[in-house]
């Protein structure tokens, strides 16, 4: 049963990502991406990463994809779909891409893991996934958290500067 569900999600993720990226209308592409992220969130649940699954949905679906949609609406989605879809020399690039894909997939299917950390599944089940991530995050990576705060603050200023329009009425 679990294999069946997992198989569905594998096929669906790959299928959706192909479908999403080949849409002519960017709005459809963004919606396909939304569907892809929902499926990936479910795959995270297979991996006992419930907190990350929810964060994935909240951040990607709730913030990033809406940002994409707003940008599309701002630019006028109807005109965008009329521009040319692919680059003029795309056969060679597809070849490079497929070669990279073969290397990546081939290499990944041969990976063996010897290392085992101390955060076993029973430990995570005991204190809960969210708490385990939180304890690790704030005890081992406090500087990382601060840096993320700064990294999120700077784009905010940058976007405000980029989107600033001078008042011409004066």
């Amino acid at each position, binding site marked *: 049963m679990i294999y069946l569900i997992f198989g569905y999600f594998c096929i669906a993720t790959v299928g959706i990502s192909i479908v999403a990226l080949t849409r002519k209308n960017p709005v459809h592409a963004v919606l396909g991406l939304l569907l892809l992220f929902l499926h990936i969130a479910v795959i995270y649940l297979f991996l006992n990463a419930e907190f990350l699954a*929810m964060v994935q949905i909240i951040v990607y679906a*709730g913030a990033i994809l809406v940002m994409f949609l707003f940008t599309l609406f701002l630019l006028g989605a109807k005109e965008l779909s009329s521009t040319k879809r692919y680059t003029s020399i795309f056969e060679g690039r597809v070849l490079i891409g497929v070669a990279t894909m073969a290397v990546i997939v081939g290499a990944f299917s041969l990976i063996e893991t010897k290392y085992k950390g101390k955060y076993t599944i029973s430990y995570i089940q005991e204190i809960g996934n*969210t708490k385990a991530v939180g304890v690790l995050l704030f005890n081992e990576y406090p500087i990382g958290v601060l840096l993320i705060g700064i990294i999120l603050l700077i784009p905010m200023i940058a976007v405000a500067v980029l989107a600033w329009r001078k008042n011409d009425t004066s």
Partner: protein
Amino acid sequence: MIELLGLVIKTFVVFAIVLTHVAYTTYAERKIIGRAQARMGPMEVGPHGLLQPIADFIKIFFKEDIIPMNAEKLLFKIAPLVVLVFTTINLTVIPFTSDFIIADLNIGVLFILASASVAVYGVILAGWSSNSKYSFLGGIRSASQVLSYEIALGLSLAGVVLMAGSLNLREIVYAQHKTAFGIYAIPQIIGFVVFIIAAFAETNRAPFDLPEAETELVAGYLTEYSAFRYALFFLAEYIAMYVMASICTLCFLGGWTIPKFITDFLPFLEKVPGIVWFAIKVYAFIFLYIWIRATFPRYRFDQLLSIGWKVLIPAGIINIFITAFIKRFAL
């Protein structure tokens, strides 16, 4: 197998109860607003108009289903379902009493925030796929409103999560029952006020019903919808009201419990089943929704956004700081 069957039955029970509640909330809304405006409200169908919601539902389901010629047909059809599904899904994580809950998730609060952020797409899609200016403006307005207020909602809930030390809604209620006041609405008063205002905006209700402001936008993103698809949006709105009322009850008003100092004073109240307290609190919140709709004028859109970004979000952040400080040093 038996377990699965039990789950299905539970789901049906919850869904049936919520649907009945939604039907009669529309009736209650019309009656209460009628009283507030010194008129009778519906009186024709049945005694005191009690059968009015049933008549309305029969009527709306037999109307003609119109799809505009220039609409994006598929998205136009999917949009109401997206809204309905992702609001109804919230009912699965809400504990109605200490042992009646469909799925006892460890991350209940996050789940609710996540499904709220997906439900926005239904509204955006409804606005975009209708291919009409009014719908589109309504959809965009609704999206920016819901997204801005979702931040405030999340921040106000973060204070509660900090105090309870858990994201599980059931454990939040238990942790609340242990405190001196018995409810988080008193120690988390800033969070409580922020939550209530954000909940009104999140569900697109008056005084923040900008997306469907009929004087400016005809009916917002609902303009092109008719019959049954319109009814689905309507259903989703009322279910969202109930979900928000339940979250408020669970996170700030003690869920199915009542504060200890009341039961110490009046011990016979402990015999009352928890679902009664839960229902009373939820009904009170729904009444607040209707009451405010009857009394407050609608805000302007820029006022709405500046309340969200300049008042509620800073208040929520300050609330988190204070809560964290107290939790770390005073307790």
